[in-house]
């Protein structure tokens, strides 16, 4: 049996639990999954994999700190390297660096060697739904239909970080995942999905950011993986489409086979 936790401090955790259960029910895999809410270090300790949902990333990190979860989460993600998936605020939490954070910064777990830009598209008025091609889904089925991707005050990956990352000029408003433990992993960052440049005109929020990933404005990175850590800017749990949940559960099952 594989126990999959959903960090349930704040945000869309019940939607993830529901999508995960639906995906597991319709899966043909021989693995039995158990799904559980995680609010304490003791609840985290029994998990083999974890989803960090969307919500407000500032709230998530403050409540995680109050609940004594920051170091256990870093251990889970970076030392034990258990499969972990973050959506939206969860992606921010799992990044080594974030820009446009709240004054005074905010605590991150890290695990993805990237810098994310919070509220990249702007305020709620700039939130949107768009059909997104997800090439990684087509490995399991012949021709994957586009995915209805819901972006809500969403972050995107702004910058790939290298090992000498800390020497790159840091922004005053930015946050860095503080940890004595190294994020050492041989795994490279894989870009899994790009949002085409339809929102190029909407990039005002990103103007002035150093080293954009795609200077040509080819698009924004909205799904990525590095070893055990998977991140999406958008919210698959807000749709009836469980393909990404099913795909991730298959990755989790493979890790424990």
């Amino acid at each position: 049996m594989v126990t999959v936790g959903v960090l349930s401090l704040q945000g869309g955790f019940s939607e993830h639990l529901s999508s995960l259960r639906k995906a597991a029910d319709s899966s043909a895999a021989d693995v039995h999954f158990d799904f559980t809410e995680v609010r304490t270090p003791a609840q985290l300790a029994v998990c083999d994999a974890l989803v960090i949902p969307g919500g407000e990333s500032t709230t998530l990190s403050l409540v995680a700190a109050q609940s004594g979860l920051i170091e256990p989460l870093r251990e889970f993600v970076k030392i034990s390297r258990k499969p972990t998936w973050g959506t939206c605020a969860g992606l921010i939490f799992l990044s080594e660096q974030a820009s446009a954070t709240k004054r005074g910064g905010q605590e991150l777990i890290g695990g993805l060697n990237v810098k994310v830009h919070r509220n990249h598209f702007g305020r709620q008025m700039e939130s949107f739904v768009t059909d997104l091609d997800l090439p990684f889904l087509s490995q399991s089925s012949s021709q994957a239909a586009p995915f209805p991707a819901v972006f809500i005050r969403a972050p995107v990956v702004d910058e790939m970080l290298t090992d000498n990352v800390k020497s790159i000029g840091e922004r005053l408003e930015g946050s860095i995942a503080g940890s004595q433990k190294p994020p050492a992993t041989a795994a490279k960052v894989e870009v899994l999905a790009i949002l085409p440049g339809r929102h190029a005109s909407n990039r005002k929020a990103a103007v002035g950011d150093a080293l954009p990933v795609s200077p040509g404005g080819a698009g924004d990175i909205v799904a990525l993986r590095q070893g055990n850590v998977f991140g999406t800017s958008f919210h698959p749990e807000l749709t009836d489409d469980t393909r990404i949940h099913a795909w991730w559960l298959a990755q989790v099952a493979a890790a424990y086979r």
Partner: protein
Amino acid sequence: MTNNDAGSSIAAPAAASSNGTASTSANKDNKTPFTVKAGLAQMLKGGVIMDVTDAAQARIAEDAGACAVMALERVPADIRAEGGVVRMSDPGKIKEIQEAVTIPVMAKARIGHFVECQILEALGVDYIDESEVLTPADDAFHVEKAPFSVPFVCGCRNLPEALRRIAEGAAMIRTKGEAGTGDVVEAVKHMRTVKADIARAKAALQEGGDLAIRALAREFGCDAALLRQTAELGRLPVVNFAAGGVATPADAALMMQLGCDGVFVGSGIFKSGDAAKRAKAIVRATTHFRDAKVLAECSEGLGEAMVGISVNSMKPEQKMAGRGW
């Protein structure tokens, strides 16, 4: 299954143009899909939304872990004390608060005042609260909310009222409670009434199917399709927060245990002795709402709570919850 798990089956109401599997087409005519409007509320669940009147308070709220702030000129307790016509905030104040924090900023418009809503939309607020705390501008109609791109939250005292607001386009509901009193009794009453109404709708659907739902919808004065959807889900079809009188961590946890998805705190924080400490404690209590040990810890040593007014001692015309229908 916990109370919160019930939230998993939230889908866009039948009255809205799109459902859970939204498509891009709705975006092209510059109409925000309901999934996106209701989705932000879903991301606020399990969180605390705090009333703030300036940038300094907004920063205290953000630092305490608020998942959003409500920008307003005076908190309800002061509105109550000072009286007069209460309107939308000065846009300058709202901008100042938007500059100060990175979390969503909500703002209040008067019931029925669609031009205040247009102004708030132009300011780029993240949510509009069409609120009985301000003086109503129309005694016959609430704002037609569906055509706006910005999402709306509205108060309710019972299920029919909630479904009327959702039919108008509200993407989030809250109890009305009795704002500015620090007395949680009305919020509890409204939440219990919504739950009892939902139980009636469920029973009607099971026993009499569509016919019984239509009869109940006539009695309730609400949309039959939304009533049916509520009966099927066993909960409101959008996120439902507690509001109106929440003043302590225990109040917040009480509302969460009663099945609310999150909590609005108005006067309770900045009318108390140590606002930052109380704000943090209420955030923690809202996450760990079932853990009495944590609740005991975060209830300790918070200093003076807001003095408050017992709702029992109020005359009907002093109550705000009666505004709107």
